């Protein structure tokens, strides 16, 4: 079996035993990237010599008998919104095209300390805003199972890199489904941990009360390994929670006893593709055969989740993205052109006798902000900045923002009630398998509604996982989502592992 066919946990074991060197392994994945990424386009940047130098350094330390971190020189792909010191970090936005952060994100520091080889930065929807990776400011990523289709988003590059075997593990972020959706559509596993479980320090902010970093890999075991490295309290993130991180990799093999699984009545309504529904129901039967009890539960406010999310997330985004002003870092408009344009407008107004209009023109600083931002941001980012600014403005604040925050509490209460009766909730990840590139680009509302089954978990702050749950008749992966109460990642991983011991969906690989 080729190295790239092995799972992350197996590879770490081999590295540790000295059966394979990190250089050899890193080269195998770099070769795969060379072979496939011109089709998939999962990576924004790969620096082979830096990755190999790092692998070499780890191998040298191993030879010298010095201690090696948890990941033993395993390559890991990184979503390009995690700050890596001195290396470009773009968020797939033109506005950050030349940005090189002066520090490492906490998760990057943790990965480096665990001796991961950072193999490349992956593509995404610009600022993580989207569910298809078509909103990248550079190029779209393609689904390895069908190159004409989207990989999901916003961590589409991370998911596609693992699905196409260009990386054994990847890091993503999930604000409204951005790990679970692409994991589901690419036929791999991905987890959004509880809000506060993983430090957000150095994660470029989209919606700060919803963003959470998490692992992507082939199996639940892979996720357990990476989550152990990523999770933990960080004084640099005041929302990171100071609770112990359980040893996920040690408990994952233990099946959950007397498991009660909830099926949400409202999940199986209009808009759910029959093949996705069939896969979810069959997955539930697998759990039944493993001794689980299945119970119907209700999340009555679920139908309001998309509207609630698309008020709260843009509000937070409009505030977070105010920092892109062409002054401190990022793109700045051509100043000479800008001043000439402003001067010409002023002269034009005065010439037409509109002195008042000329006086009302903004000054050069404000015009510089506006031009820099408009040149740097893509259409979806602009749409969300305007939505958020509108929903937060005087006169609309109560009707939109405050109302959404109240509904957010109702959504959380629904979950709390459901989890009094069941241990895990099982359901779909997305309403349909991967759609075609371009299919929804002109219809943002249709794109938003694709997030129907994922956003409520972020609003509630709870953990969730997406694992391969089947395939459509046309050979596209279908994800199964499991959701759990706060800080029950261990339960999710064990539940997912039980399913993967009984099925083989997670072993299937696309032909590339």
């Amino acid at each position: 079996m080729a190295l790239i066919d092995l799972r992350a946990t197996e590879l770490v074991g081999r590295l540790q035993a000295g059966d394979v060197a990190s250089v050899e392994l890193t080269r195998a994945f770099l070769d795969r990237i060379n072979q496939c990424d011109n089709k998939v386009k999962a990576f924004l940047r790969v620096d082979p010599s830096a990755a190999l130098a790092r692998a070499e350094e780890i191998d040298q330390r191993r030879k010298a008998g010095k201690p090696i971190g948890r990941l033993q020189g395993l390559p890991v792909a990184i979503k390009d919104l995690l700050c890596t010191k001195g290396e470009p970090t773009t968020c797939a936005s033109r506005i950050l095209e030349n940005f090189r952060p002066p520090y490492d994100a906490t998760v990057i520091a943790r990965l480096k300390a665990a001796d991961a080889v950072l193999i490349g930065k992956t593509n995404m929807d610009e600022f993580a805003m989207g569910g298809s990776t078509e909103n990248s400011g550079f190029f779209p990523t393609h689904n390895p199972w069908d190159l004409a289709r989207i990989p999901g988003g916003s961590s589409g590059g991370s998911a596609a890199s693992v699905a196409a075997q260009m990386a054994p593990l990847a890091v993503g972020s999930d604000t409204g489904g951005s790990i679970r959706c692409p994991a589901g559509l690419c036929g791999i596993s991905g987890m959004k941990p509880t809000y506060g479980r993983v430090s957000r320090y150095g994660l470029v902010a989209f919606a700060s009360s919803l963003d959470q970093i998490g692992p992507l890999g082939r199996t639940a075991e892979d996720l357990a390994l990476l989550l152990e490295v990523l999770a933990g309290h960080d004084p640099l993130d005041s929302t990171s929670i100071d609770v112990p991180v359980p040893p996920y990799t040690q408990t994952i093999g233990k099946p959950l006893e007397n498991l009660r699984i909830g099926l949400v009545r409202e999940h199986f309504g209009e808009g759910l593709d029959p093949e996705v529904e069939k896969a979810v129901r069959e997955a539930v039967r697998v759990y039944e055969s493993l001794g689980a009890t299945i119970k119907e539960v209700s999340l009555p406010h679920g139908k309001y989740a998309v509207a609630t999310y698309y008020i709260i997330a843009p509000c937070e985004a409009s505030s977070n993205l105010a920092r892109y002003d062409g002054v401190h870092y990022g793109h700045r408009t051509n100043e000479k052109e800008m001043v000439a344009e402003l001067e010409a407008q002023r002269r034009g107004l005065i010439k037409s006798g509109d002195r008042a209009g000329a006086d009302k023109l903004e000054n050069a600083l404000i015009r510089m902000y506006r031009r820099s931002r408009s040149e740097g941001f893509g259409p979806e980012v602009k749409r969300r900045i305007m939505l958020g600014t509108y929903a937060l403005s005087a006169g609309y604040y109560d009707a939109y923002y405050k109302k959404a925050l109240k509904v957010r509490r109702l959504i959380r209460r629904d979950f709390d009630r459901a989890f009094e009766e069941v241990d895990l909730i099982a359901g779909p990840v997305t309403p349909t398998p991967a759609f075609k590139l371009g299919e929804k680009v002109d219809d943002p509302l249709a794109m938003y509604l694709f997030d129907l089954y994922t956003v409520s978990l972020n609003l509630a702050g709870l953990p969730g996982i997406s694992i391969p749950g089947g395939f459509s008749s046309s050979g596209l992966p279908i994800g199964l989502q499991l959701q759990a109460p706060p800080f029950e990642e261990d339960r999710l991983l064990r539940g997912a592992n039980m399913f993967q011991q009984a099925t083989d969906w997670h072993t299937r690989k696309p032909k590339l």
Partner: protein
Amino acid sequence: MLGRLLLTEAELDTMTHQMGDILAYMDLLGELDTEHVEPMAHALDVANVFRDDKARPSLDREDALANAPHRDAECYLVPAVLGEV
């Protein structure tokens, strides 16, 4: 213009339609009675987190200025805001 953006006529045209659709969809929330519901700004019920009020090393000035599109040795530079442009 909202959020300090500048849109072309064509962008304005498309966005107006799209924003209209999106905002109309948001009206769905109107059917819920939330009068006695406390807003939930955050998923965690954590109180303010404070650190000791001690000075610590912070980002070096050169590092902080390194990404600036326009700077001198010590400062960020912006277009003149006083007087005629």
